[in-house]
């Protein structure tokens, strides 16, 4: 009961946040410079044709009415029509979103498999050369932006060592092996960039847990250090790490906007850039909403997972 209650509360929060996001997305895209009708019709358009197009697009309506129309459409699943492509925004996004998700999820998997063992080892060997090396490497990963990692990986693995394509996307349904082949470099580049935060969080959270009473008590039971670390401390240390992973996933999703450009990955990131370049307001708004939604969903899942891992949250918390 408490668990459902907890999830319902999180969902209610999400609905409110989403409403705020629509306001911001709508407000921001409407203060972008440039007349949409003029952009569509070209520099030779007459005043009348611009006015006619604005009326057709509903752009002559007061802003609040445009907003309400848009939000009502959103609720019904109608995100409007792309000005540039002339097709429904929802269709454009539906094609590209899974590709971006594939990239972001793969990158998160790469970073988790790297960072958690590194973080645990660094914590167990606190203040030894191993710890310092691991922390230093993670710091290097952190200090370069994602797109630079992309360029480094392309240079090293595709151009110098060879064996990996520099760009492009292949659907895993058409050719799974080629798909993975194309995925490895962008996913690793982003994964490495994300590793640092998660590793540092794992390390500090693990160090905290290792000084807890229950760890000492577990040792007093005669458990081996390995069992103490993996069975007792890690599960507790994971709780704050999960938030960071969820946060990093959303960060990765922001990162794809740039990285997709580097690797010519036809996902939602490139779609967003195209929308900005072309003042394609309905498309841009749709992209923002979807990216925000992904962000919120990943945090919601983190909360739910949180509650799953930590029984104190699952059952409504302690006094």
């Amino acid at each position, binding site marked *: 009961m408490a668990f459902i209650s907890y999830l*319902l509360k999180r969902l209610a929060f999400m609905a409110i946040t989403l409403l705020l996001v629509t306001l911001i997305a709508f407000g921001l895209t409407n203060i972008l410079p440039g007349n949409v009708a003029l952009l569509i019709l070209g520099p030779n358009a007459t005043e009348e044709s611009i006015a006619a197009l604005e009326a057709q697009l509903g752009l002559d309506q007061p802003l609040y009415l445009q907003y309400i129309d848009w939000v009502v459409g959103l609720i019904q699943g109608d995100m409007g029509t792309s000005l540039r492509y002339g097709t429904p925004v929802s269709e454009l996004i539906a094609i590209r979103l899974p590709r971006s998700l594939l990239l972001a999820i793969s990158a998160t998997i790469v970073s988790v498999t790297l960072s958690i063992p590194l973080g645990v080892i660094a914590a167990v060997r606190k203040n030894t050369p191993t710890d310092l090396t691991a922390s230093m490497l993670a710091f290097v990963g952190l200090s370069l932006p994602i797109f630079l990692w992309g360029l480094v990986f392309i240079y090293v693995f595709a151009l110098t060592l060879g064996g990996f394509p520099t760009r492009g996307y292949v659907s895993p349904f058409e050719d799974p092996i080629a798909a993975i082949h194309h995925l490895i470099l962008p996913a690793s580049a982003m994964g490495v960039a994300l590793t640092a935060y998660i590793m540092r969080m794992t390390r500090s959270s693990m160090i905290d847990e290792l000084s807890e009473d229950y760890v000492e008590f577990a040792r*007093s039971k005669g458990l081996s250090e390995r069992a103490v670390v993996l069975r007792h401390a890690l599960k507790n240390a994971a709780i704050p790490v999960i938030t960071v992973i969820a946060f990093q996933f959303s960060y990765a999703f922001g990162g794809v906007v740039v990285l997709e450009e580097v690797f010519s990955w036809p996902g939602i990131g490139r779609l967003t850039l195209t929308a900005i370049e072309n003042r394609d307001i309905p498309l841009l708004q749709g992209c923002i909403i979807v990216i925000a939604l992904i962000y919120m969903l990943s945090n919601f899942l983190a909360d739910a997972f949180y509650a799953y891992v930590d029984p104190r949250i699952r059952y409504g918390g302690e006094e």
Partner: protein
Amino acid sequence: MTTTDSLLAVDDLRTQFRTEEGIVTAVNDVSFALDHGEVMGIVGESGAGKSVTAKSIMRLIRYPGEIVSGSITFDGQDLLALSEKEMRSVRGNKITLIPQDPMTALNPVLTVGQQIIETIQLHQNVGESEAREIAIEAMEDVEIPDPASRIDEYPHEFSGGMRQRVLIAIGLACEPDLIIADEPTTALDVTTQAKILELLNDLREKRGVSILMITHNLGVVAQTCDRVGVMYAGNLVETGRVADIFEQPRHPYTRTLIDAIPAVDSDRNRLYALGGSMPDLQALPDGCNFADRCPHAIEACRSGSDPALEPVAGAPGGTEAACIRADELDLSEPAVEEGVERRHRETHTEPLLEVNGLEKHFSAGDGLFGNLSLARTDGGSLTLERRYVKAVDGVSFTINRGETVGLVGESGCGKSTVARTVMQLLEPTGGEVYFDGHPLHELGKREIRSLRQEMQIIFQDPKSSLNPRKTVGQIIGRGMEKHDIATGNEKRERIEELLERVGLQASDIDKYPHQFSGGQQQRIAIANALAVEPELIVCDEPVSALDVSVQAQILNLLDDIQDEFGLSYLFISHNISVVRHLCDRVAVMYLGKIAEFGSVDDVFDPPYHPYTESLLSAVPHADPAQMSDRILLEGTVPSPLDPPSGCPFHTRCPKKIGDVCETDEPLPEAVGDESTHQISCHLSVEEMSEPVTDRPVAGSKVEES
């Protein structure tokens, strides 16, 4: 020293810690032996080396600590010679640990069952289901109700006392020969402590297991141990049979330790308090470590090395003391400070603080929807309801000028919330507070701020209440400036005077809080409170974090300055002995309400309200000759989110009379003609005076959760 029949023999054990300031010898050549089936207490103040001794025996000392020398022989085996792997098969199997804090010693994300079964499977060659059965048996042995279903619950679903039972169940599951109990009841309320001690006594009788009881509480030692070792600054200074040591201590430190505790049936004599505190382990003095504080120290005590434990002439067998004068001193009588008589109880009649029907309800949970909760209505449909924690629910009392009123109760009863609400640090949700005639509940923030000069508060932990970045002079001076009491040189002089008055040096004015010990910091907090010349000081557990000898110093100080500065105290404590020692009148709180209010003698001597009676009986006497009949309460304090109907105590009351207790809330009634003694109970005074015969009435049994 080592005898062949001892279960455990510790010889010249030395454990050191490397710190940035140098090497700290936490355990300094300690030797003792423990027989089969024996319960031995190791008692001492914080920093004495008790816990490090315990951890050394289990070889749980980790970097930067190290066992440097000595031997630990357990069951004929030299534990220090074992490999880490061999040692692991001893830990949790032959020697088990019951740790101090049940709230933190269990892993919050594993079920209780997983944590018991894990130990069993580690040391016994049994399958999952068999281990589970053994675990359930162990839970039964420690009297956890309904173990078969509770085994799959998580630690947070258990109360503190029940968690401590789980820890004991883990300790027992592999049938060890030795249990090391490291302050097993320190984190528990007194009524829960009584039950856990009873359980340990039972288990020891049934199983013949040996127990090494690490504690700072002489009462616990007196009620559970056969023998005791007293530790001071890393050394054992006295060992012997418990009865002998309480009868006639042979080391002056043991004597002062006993004298520093206010007895639960204490008269109001001044406590005998030593000056100073335990020496810094890195800068031990020449000669006896205790000489600087010892009232019997002579020149010879201050040279050479620290004396070793030696048998004392004329003392019963087994008594050893590390004191060069042990043979000649007679310490059988409590030390009395000469020339200082405790003032007599006076009657104070002019009211200073009047609290009427004070309420403080907190919204449960935080955030926008925090206190909303899904619930089922009687019809079974889901509804949302707002929930409140009734931390203080209709509390009334008065404090007269010059008087000390105690507020006593177990954790979670609302006593600290009363303190903060009275001070208007928390806004009351109902009721009236009059201070010196001013209705605080009606005043605005600014008026309250100017009245705050008259009301000061001292908290339990001076470390967190003194600003670490300010000097003592700046901390104390701030209030004086704010309330226009003194500035400039005059201020400085006043602060120096105050520091000297509370037992510090005038030169301490430019030091920072971290340069002082806990007891000294509490003195600074007291000086800080006095600086603004208040009428009332609210003391919220002011001595709970302090060692007994320091506690006695602070209690004496509070007592001394009361008349001198014309102070009234609201003294909040869970420690009945301390309240009884210091207070004129006392209010006993239970679940946000006052169960009983009256003069200390009326309330405690003899106790009337069943809760007061249970509370009093649960306090372990620091005197092995006084085995009191403890009333063991069922269950724990119910949640203030969902308090019981009628009398809040009815779910645990050993004298519950029937339905009236469940349906009608008892109102405070004056006892006889004395309007000053009020009891909230449906029983008549005669009924309350009868001894508790039966365990709680059938059907009223409430499970702890």
